[in-house]
């Protein structure tokens, strides 16, 4: 699962159960969560339970799952519970939560008048709006936003044609601390760098979640005029994700609060509204791929190129094969754009700049600086690999050697390790168990759901980074013991 699923699942995990009950009223939301957030085994379990008339006995589940896959089973159940998809009826049985069950059935079977998957517009769509047009439009909008973030590094934009994203989007980036104001100018933050190196899909989610949080703050202050509410906003995102790319949808069928969201979504490039006709909107690829795992407009690397080449069409063509990396840690990059040079400057020491070529070194200091900003060695290596020059590919293929010099790659990793002399994990220490059996049962359970970071069977202690489900387990275990 990619990074966006992580930030989204973190956001979802901290929502209360009541919020989930409301979210799952919408079939599109239930379906989106089902297809995006669940590992395969969890999906299988949900599908199996979907049409069960009675609660599912845990003992039956044990029979279905091979003993060797216990860990996977426990993790799947843990995810399902944290997303409030299943509930325990009794200690020995579980069932799908009613709203989720109903909505997922509706999503699969069709029917109902929930309009949860959008209402297609009956008016004819303007002929010039086709998929290519929408892709161009979305890319332009998104690149404006990326540009704004990158330009804060200090490489002024040479492009005069684009006037950057709307003020509201800028405020959001500022509020989310992707960029911050410093002495009149803007400067990018560590979170901003991480944002830049993310995949487009993850970037969109980052921005949407920032928007949700901003709306929550507004609501808490009672200052919201638009009447936007984060639960409704979230389910609208999931609705957008279920729409068909390149098709016109009806804005009139949307409730007032959602209509108020449309202008901001236009600013993000998630939807397009034809200038002469505000009764229609077109979802772009950024919106329709929100909950699918396929890559959106392009990969990160291609994104950097596209940001500079604006509407030149196929972004991937412009960007590939630019960097030569030598075993002596020197790097030559055939790049033009300030954006790409800015990215290279993040992790290398640039020495010379010519027209169409920059050269520099990878040094301990430069990698360290990058790591301090929150860029990982793997990100750097994958950036170098995906941008390697054709010649590098040719040499690697003819000599049967790896694409990038292993000595450099290892050294980059070692330099990063240098900065991480200690690895800190937050969590709780469990100790002073009554007896060894108690320790081993609880510790094994915690290990199976994947939350144990350290254990010492001799001392009878373990350290867990999440504690909620262990508490549940201990409570049920205690009850079971009392019953004996």
């Amino acid at each position: 699962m990619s990074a966006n699923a992580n930030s989204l699942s973190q956001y979802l995990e901290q929502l209360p159960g009541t919020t989930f009950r409301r979210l799952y009223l919408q079939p599109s939301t239930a379906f989106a969560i089902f297809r995006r957030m669940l590992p395969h085994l969890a999906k299988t379990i949900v599908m199996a339970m979907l049409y069960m008339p009675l609660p599912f006995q845990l003992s039956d589940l044990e029979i279905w799952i091979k003993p060797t896959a216990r860990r996977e089973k426990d993790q799947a159940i843990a995810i399902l519970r944290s997303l409030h998809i299943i509930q325990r009826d009794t200690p020995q049985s579980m069932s799908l939560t009613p709203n989720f069950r109903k909505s997922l059935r509706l999503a699969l079977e069709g029917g109902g008048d929930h309009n949860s998957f959008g209402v297609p517009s009956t008016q004819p769509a303007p002929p010039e709006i086709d998929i290519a047009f929408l892709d161009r439009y979305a890319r332009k909008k998104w690149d404006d936003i990326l540009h704004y973030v990158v330009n804060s590094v200090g490489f002024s934009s040479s492009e005069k044609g684009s006037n950057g994203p709307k003020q509201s989007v800028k405020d959001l980036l500022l509020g989310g601390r992707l960029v911050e104001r410093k002495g009149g100018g803007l400067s990018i933050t560590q979170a901003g760098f991480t944002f830049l190196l993310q995949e487009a899909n993850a970037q969109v989610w980052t921005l949407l979640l920032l928007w949700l949080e901003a709306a929550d703050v507004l609501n808490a202050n009672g200052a919201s005029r638009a009447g936007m509410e984060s639960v409704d906003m979230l389910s609208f995102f999931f609705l957008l994700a279920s729409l068909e790319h390149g098709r016109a949808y009806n804005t009139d069928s949307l409730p007032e609060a959602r209509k108020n969201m449309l202008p901001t979504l236009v600013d993000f490039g998630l939807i397009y509204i034809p200038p002469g006709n505000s009764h229609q909107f077109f979802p772009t690829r950024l919106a329709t791929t929100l909950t699918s795992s396929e890559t959106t407009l392009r990969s990160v690397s291609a994104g950097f190129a596209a940001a500079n080449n604006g509407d030149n069409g196929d972004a991937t063509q412009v960007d590939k094969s630019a960097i030569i990396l030598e075993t002596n840690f020197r790097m030559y990059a055939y790049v033009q754009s300030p954006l790409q040079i800015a990215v290279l400057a993040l992790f290398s020491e640039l020495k010379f700049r010519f027209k169409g070529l920059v050269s520099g070194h990878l040094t301990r200091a430069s990698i360290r600086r990058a790591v301090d900003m929150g860029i990982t060695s793997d990100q750097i290596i994958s950036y170098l690999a995906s941008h390697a020059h054709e010649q590098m590919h040719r040499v690697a293929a003819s000599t049967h050697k790896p694409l990038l010099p292993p000595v450099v790659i290892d050294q980059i990793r070692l330099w990063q390790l240098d900065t991480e002399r200690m690895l800190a994990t937050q969590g709780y220490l469990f100790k002073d168990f009554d007896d060894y059996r108690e320790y081993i049962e609880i510790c094994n359970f915690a290990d199976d759901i994947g939350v144990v970071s350290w254990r010492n069977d001799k001392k009878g202690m373990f350290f867990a980074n999440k504690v909620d489900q262990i508490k549940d387990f201990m409570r049920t275990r205690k009850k079971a013991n009392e019953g004996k």
Partner: protein
Amino acid sequence: MFSYFLDSLHRDTGKLGIRTLVECDPSIKSIIVNIDNDKNDYIIEDLDESHLLIKDNMVSQLKAKLEDRLKETVPIVENDSDSDRDVK
């Protein structure tokens, strides 16, 4: 007995707050122990040769102190990556 443990868990999570497990090489651990010897305000429990339990609010401070110590003891070699030098 068991309820005592649950209570202690609640007390742990409630009052003392979340803790931090630090994993490091034995050599680094000895430096941390040495830093802690001054005031004993970092380490809660010494778990084994490569693990320590640290007060959660002290982690960033400890990291900074460790960096300082390492700077004193480990020499930083400039330009150790390059065999043929450019004219600076």
